[in-house]
């Protein structure tokens, strides 16, 4: 019997019990939809973080202290001065969350003190106004560049430039508004207020800085610059491994590793449901073989060989799982769209679609083989006698 015949009789068999076929396929539909959605979420998260890091600006290097080491602005200056491959540095103080007030409006936001040049190193763009410069940092000016969220929450559409925002009882003049970075992981994003590092240190009564941002001349010298910075800092503090130096490349690598692990894990969890769906197929196929014992007997009596019966039932289970897979891909795509409503980025890639489709076909094949083999090896006389 040709494959077309096996296909036809398989469709016939499935049509014979539409509800049962649909319910069986549902197991695969849910499994595939779960695989598609969860991989999309994982991939989306990865894309998000990668974009975030990419926004840091090319050639950015992050220097942070290990325990027992206190970095300050002098260290930033020293790196800029002594490392020839570093163009500029900017110290950063993450000063936690404080309330920013304007008139009757109040909004909790993270306060960061940053040095001049921070905007260049990080590739920060402004919607309006300007970033503060060397002078304002030196003079401990009370100026602020505010994030998009802060601007919206406090000014609600009014022009924030020149307005006076109060943080911890001090008044800051708004001189710029950051471009929105979209909702994303970490980094503060849009809910941030940037003030000169010197002003921040006085406001929070500290001489420390959290991180020093450095910009290498080019991506090629970034690794060299990193080790140079590490050497200088180790010398300065008189110990090995005094600081963590991370270049943007390394950061990207780490994030890629983490998110791909996350994606694989999510996919694997979803894959389990696909496996359960496959067991459902095997179960229903076994029932179907039992029920249609007489049909198998008749087919054998009129000349069906083992492989004819095998093909018929195998095609049936593969059709079930492939059909379920196709519908599942559609559902998964919709579900991914739906998840985006909650602010998560998702990415349905052709790879994940292909994976889900191939996997569901394989599930149908794998779980169909045993029932089909059972059918194929039935004795025609016994099968004809079956009531």
């Amino acid at each position, binding site marked *: *019997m*040709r494959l077309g*015949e096996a296909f036809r009789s398989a469709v*016939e068999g499935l*049509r*014979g019990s539409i509800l049962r076929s649909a319910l069986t396929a549902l197991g695969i539909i849910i499994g595939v939809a779960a695989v598609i959605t969860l991989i999309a979420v994982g991939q989306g998260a990865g894309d998000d973080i990668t974009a975030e890091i990419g926004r840091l600006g090319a050639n950015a290097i992050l220097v942070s202290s290990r325990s027992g080491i206190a970095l300050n602005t002098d260290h930033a200056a020293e790196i800029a001065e002594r490392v020839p491959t570093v163009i500029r540095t900017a110290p950063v103080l993450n000063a936690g969350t404080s309330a920013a007030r304007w008139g009757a409006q109040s909004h909790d936001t993270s306060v960061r003190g940053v040095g001049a040049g921070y905007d260049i190193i990080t590739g920060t763009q402004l919607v309006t106004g300007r970033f503060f410069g060397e002078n304002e940092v030196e003079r401990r000016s009370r100026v602020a560049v505010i994030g998009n969220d802060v601007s919206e929450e406090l000014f609600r559409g009014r022009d924030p430039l020149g307005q006076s925002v109060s943080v911890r009882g001090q008044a800051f003049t708004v001189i710029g508004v950051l471009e929105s970075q979209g909702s994303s992981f970490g980094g503060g994003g849009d809910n941030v207020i940037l003030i000169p590092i010197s002003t921040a240190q006085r406001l929070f009564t500290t001489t420390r800085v959290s991180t020093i941002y450095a910009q290498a001349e080019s991506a090629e010298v970034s690794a060299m610059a990193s080790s140079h910075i590490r050497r200088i800092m180790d010398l300065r503090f008189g110990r090995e491994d005094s600081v963590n130096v991370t270049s943007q490349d390394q950061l990207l690598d780490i994030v890629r590793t983490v998110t791909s692990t996350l994606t694989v894990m999510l996919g694997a969890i979803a894959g389990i449901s696909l496996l359960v769906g496959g067991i459902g197929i095997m179960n229903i196929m076994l029932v179907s073989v039992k029920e249609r014992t*007489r*049909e198998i*007997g*008749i*087919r*054998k*009596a*009129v*000349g*069906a*060989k*083992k*492989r*004819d019966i095998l093909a018929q039932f195998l095609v049936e289970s593969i059709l079930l799982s492939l059909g379920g897979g196709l519908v599942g891909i559609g559902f998964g795509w919709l579900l991914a769209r739906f998840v985006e409503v909650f602010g998560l980025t998702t990415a349905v890639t052709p790879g994940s679609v292909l994976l889900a489709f191939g996997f569901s076909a394989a599930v149908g094949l794998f779980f169909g083989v045993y029932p089909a083999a059972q059918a194929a090896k039935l004795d*025609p*006389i016994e099968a*004809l006698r079956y009531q």
Partner: protein
Amino acid sequence: MATEPLLRLENIHKTYDMGDVRVHALRGVGFRVEPGEFVAIMGPSGSGKSTLMHIIGCLDRPTAGEYFLEGEDVSQKGDDELAELRNRYLGFVFQEFNLLPSMTALENVALPLTYRGASARERVEIATRALERVGLGDRVRHKPNQLSGGQKQRVAIARSLATEPAVLMADEPTGNLDTTAQGDIMGILCELNESGITIIVVTHDPAVGAHCKRVIRLLDGSIVGDESSRPGVVSPGETR
């Protein structure tokens, strides 16, 4: 032995192991069937006639002995080879009709043809002709549950004819039918035999046996009688 007969059974034995007990279903059965014969295999239940039919029909293998079909020894063939032999040489008509309920009469009749790789057009052509031959040319699109018992059995006969078999095997073909339909079906079988088709009927019903030109009687797995009702018909397996 000038020419090889259509069927030749030599000292066929069949034993079943039922746990501790060995059941001898056939004890040394041998006979020949020539082309064009109309043979009834008769006997009470338990006489081994079903077993014999299964062996002649290539659905089962004998435990011992030889069975030649068209000169070919088929007694020790594998499952798939037997399937091919059934498709090529044999047509079956069963007591319970054994039609596939989801298929139309035409599809049921065409089923054996799908297993010999006939094209769709060929199948429809042959199946239609076979249905016309049993007088069901107007019922091709009907499903079995839309047909009467007699009509179902005629579809089954058409199915067995579709492959132009060397032998048509009928197992109690009238067992599930009313008297009128019984006469109908036997009439068709007789007609088919007249047109040259070899038919072997397995039955316990003397009325069915009366239609046949030759009757082989089985009892306890052995042949106890083999008689031709019409003079002139050669019965090479004649034991008397």
